[in-house]
Every structure is written in C-alpha cells, then in structure tokens.
C-alpha cells in the first residue's frame, strides 16, 4: 500500500476557494465584514449624516419650503422658551423614571441574584425576560385599560374605601389630572413599568458578582443590614445600576408613544420630533430636536464609561 499524500489533491473549485481564503485571512475577514459594514455604514451612518445635514438647513417661514443652505438658525430655535420647556420636561421625566426603576428593580435583582436557586432562578429570569421582550404597544395599551377613569384602579380604590385618596392624588397640581390616564403621573407610572426590566437585568448581573464572603465579612465586623447595603453592596453593584440607567434614561428620552397615549398633551422630545416632521412638515427643526438626545446620551455614556458601567453590560 502506498503512503497517502500529506496534502490532499484539490477536488475542485470549493477546495481552491477554501485554500485561498485560508492563505489570505485578511481577505477572508474583509469578505465577512463587507456586507454588514456596507449595510450599517450606508443605511445607518448615512441616515445619521442625513439627519445632521437636515438639522443645519432651515425652513422658509412664509412658503414652508426647506432651504438647503447651511445655517445655525434651526438650532437657535431650540432655545425658544417653549422648546426649552420640552427639553427640560423630558430630562426631568427621564431622571425620575430612572430613579424609580432603580429603587423598584433592586429587591427583584437582589433576590434573583442572591437567593433564587434552580427552578426559582429560571422563573425569575423568564419573569423578567418575557415582559422585556413582549409587545411594547400591548403593554402600553394594558395600562390605558388600568388607568382609565372607569378602569380597575378607580374600581379598586373605591372598593377599598380609598376613593378619596385617589381623588386627592389626582387633585395635586402639576402631576394630577382628570384621571390617571390623562395625568403626568400616569405617564410616569407607565414609563417605569415599561423600562423596569431593562434595569433589573444589568443590576442582577452586577449583584451576582458581589462575593457572598464580603457580606459575611461585613456582618462579622458588626455592620448592620443598612450599613452593609450602603458601604458594600451598593458600591459594588453601582456599575450595574449605571448600565441599567443608560437604558431607562435613553429609552425615556426618545419615547413618544407613551406620552401620546397616556398623559396630558404636554410634549416630550420624541413627540416634538414626530409632530414636526409629520403634520408640521418642518424636517430641519425635527432633525435638530433629534440631535438633542444624541448629545445628551453621548455625555451620559462618557460619564457612565468613567464609572465602569460597560464592564457590567
């Protein structure tokens, strides 16, 4: 029997292509990346460039036609009182929603990270994943049902003899309204509900990395529950909290469906963008408005990166 050759003879085109790619790994890499980069580069970055371009155009106030000349006029319009109002209102809402999400998410994340085992762990994971992924609009709609004046909240409050309390809350100036579904408080509740899972997951991931021995050490050294939380758990879990806050903050910043369906007609950045490009036909101002969240998020991400949030993602 003859020895088989060390290198097999090539059996056709497929072999030759494979060999060529093996010998030129850079070309292979380029081939793999070409299509995705072309897509993301042209479609996505191209669009972002178009957005920037549009934001430097302006609209002719009399004819309503977009003037395609470079100007900073459109950006200057952002500083009008009514537009500044929109930006401040959105920022305030995003900050409050983020804070509330962090507070509500903590016990869930902590329990899932520290105590849930086996079946319970899977249940908690699915319990957070399913609401995160399930239909956004359906969730918003569910809250419209809940918060409606004739809905379940009013029914439950009256059934429990707390109707006067609900009325008192709704009578609060600034946050109240005719019913929960037409008040800023309603908008806030729905925002918190919708973005909560985005806070739980990174928080849980970072809490899982806090070694149990540290908590025992803290207890051995005489720390109370509160002290352990403040000086051990919170600093170690902070990157996860910040990572979660990137999502809750950014998502609230750009959302325009929720304030449109639940709340007063007070505008948020997202809603302003949507209305300006649609009914108003003022694409330059809409584009300039859309640049605002980009800048805010860039600043936010820079700070988050400094605080080590990306290691927790």
């Amino acid at each position, binding site marked *: 029997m003859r020895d088989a050759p060390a290198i097999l003879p090539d059996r056709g085109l497929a072999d030759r292509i494979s060999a060529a790619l093996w010998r030129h790994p850079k070309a292979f890499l380029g081939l793999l990346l070409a*299509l995705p980069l072309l897509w993301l580069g042209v479609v996505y970055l191209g669009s972002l460039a178009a957005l920037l371009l549009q934001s430097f155009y302006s609209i002719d106030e009399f004819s309503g036609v977009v003037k395609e000349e470079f100007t900073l006029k459109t950006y200057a319009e952002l500083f009008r009182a009514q537009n500044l109002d929109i930006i401040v209102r959105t920022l305030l809402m995003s900050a409050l929603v983020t804070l509330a999400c962090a507070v509500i998410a903590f016990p869930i994340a902590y329990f899932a990270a520290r105590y849930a085992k086996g079946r319970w762990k899977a249940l*908690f994971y699915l319990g957070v994943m399913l609401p995160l992924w399930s239909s*956004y*609009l359906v969730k918003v709609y*569910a809250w419209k049902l809940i918060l409606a004046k004739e809905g379940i909240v*009013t029914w439950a409050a009256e059934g429990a003899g707390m109707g006067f309390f609900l009325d008192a809350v709704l009578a609060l100036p600034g946050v109240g309204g005719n019913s929960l579904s037409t008040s800023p408080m309603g908008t806030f509740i729905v925002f918190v509900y919708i973005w909560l899972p985005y806070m739980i997951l990174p928080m849980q991931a970072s809490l899982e990395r806090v070694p149990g021995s540290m908590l025992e050490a803290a207890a051995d050294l005489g720390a109370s529950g509160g002290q352990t939380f403040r000086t051990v758990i919170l600093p170690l879990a902070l990157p996860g909290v910040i990572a979660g806050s990137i999502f809750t903050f950014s998502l609230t*910043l750009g959302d325009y469906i929720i304030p*449109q369906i639940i709340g007063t007609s007070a505008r948020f950045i997202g809603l302003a963008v949507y209305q300006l490009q649609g009914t108003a036909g003022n694409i330059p101002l809409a*584009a300039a408005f859309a640049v605002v969240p980009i800048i805010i998020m860039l600043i936010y991400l820079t700070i988050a990166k400094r605080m080590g949030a990306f290691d927790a993602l």
Partner: protein
Amino acid sequence: MHSDRASLGLKIAAITGLLFLHLPILLIFLYAFTTEEKSYQFPPPGLTLKWFGVAWGRDDIWPPLILSLEVAAIATVVAIILGTLVSAAMSRTKFFGREQISLLILLPIALPGVITGMALRSAFSVMDIPYSVWTIILGHATFCIVIVYNNAVARFRRISGGILEASSDLGANGFQTFRHVLLPNLGSALLAGGMLAFALSFDEVIVTTFTAGQQSTLPIWMLQELVRPRQRPVTNVVAIVVFMVTFLPILCAYYLTRDGDQTAGGGK
C-alpha cells in the same frame, strides 16, 4: 446581619415586583371578552366571545397583519445573514477597528428609536426615496442585526476552535466544514436570534411610523386605535394576536439557547 435566607420583606418586595410586571398583561385578555365597547369599564358588565368573530370579519385588519408578517420575515432573513457574517468575523480574530464595529452594531438599539426613525426619514427626504415596504424593512433589519449578532457571537465563543481544525485535518474544505460542523452547532443560536428579531420587528412601532408613510403595519393600526378608539374589544383581540406572535418566539428562543453549555467541544 447576613443570612442565607431572604428576609420576608425582601421576598415580598421581589414577588410584588414580578407580579407588577405580569398582571397588567392579563387585563388585555379579560377586556377582549367584555360586552362594553365604548369604555374600559371594570369589572366588565358581561362576557362574550363575539369580538373574535368581529375581528376576523374586519377588512381593515388583514392588510396590516400581512404587511407586518412580510416585513418581519424579510427583515429577519436580512438580519440573520448580516448578523452571522459579522459575528463570524468578530469572534475569531482581533483586528483594527473591532471596537468601533461592535459599537456600530449596538448603536441602532442603544440610541432611542426616534433617532433611528428620524435619521432614516431625513435620508429618504434628502435622497427623494418614496415610501415602500422596503423603506420599512431597511429600518427593521438595521436594528435586528444586533439581536442575531448577540446570540451568534455568544455561541461562536463557546464552539471550540479545535473541532473546526479537526474538520480541516480530516480533509473537509471550508464549505464542508461550514455545512457539516459549524452550522449544526450554530443552528439553534441563529434560530433563537432569528425568532427574537422576528418578534422585535413584528411589534416595532417607533421607527416604523417614520419609515412607513401612509402604509399601516399591525402595530401602527393598533396605535391609531389607541389614539382614536372605535370598537375597543376588537383592539384587544388584535393585541392578543400581537402578544402571542411575540411571546411564543421569545419562549422558544429561551429554550433554544438555555442548554448552550452542551455545544460540541465546549467541554474543554
């Protein structure tokens, strides 16, 4: 004080939190059976099955449903192809610009949807592109890539390089290795990523409102019903359909990727 058992307070807070996440969705189901069509009265004055029939017979629901399925299907296919390619490139080699590329993939979902939507809208306006099914798909595929990428890149990391080398040593060329070794190991991750991408695309509304023009996908139909309600329980029936079409793929994706540790060559 620290112990291995959760305190009662923590337990209650955690379970209340989970219930808070789930109970609202149940109401969608309840209201699909109510006899009251003009308001969201609770408790419902009576229960009926007729809205399912009414929804089935409404002509304005079918075209958006079909459009949504079409968009989600095509966007998913595009996302699977592009996401797999880029994850293959990212998982094996270190190269210049790798970090930037991973940021570029993440950006479409890291930035608020309204930015992606407005950016595409500006581009269509600058280039005079008329709205069509393809403008919707363009947007959807862009943010679906990252979903497939995340699933695929995690699996690539777990597949041992050894089995690919073994395959070459045994005389398989690149295509055969891909077909007989890589794909069977990658398959369930791609399926899971594809299902999540489908679910995400099927129910997407923010980017879609900017890229659809006068066309109506099912979520856009729902949004219009939410702003100006007509037969409210019919909206609930549609909401149940949307919920199921997104819920089932998510559950499947979870079970497909749960046992990822048993990937061939992962034991090393």
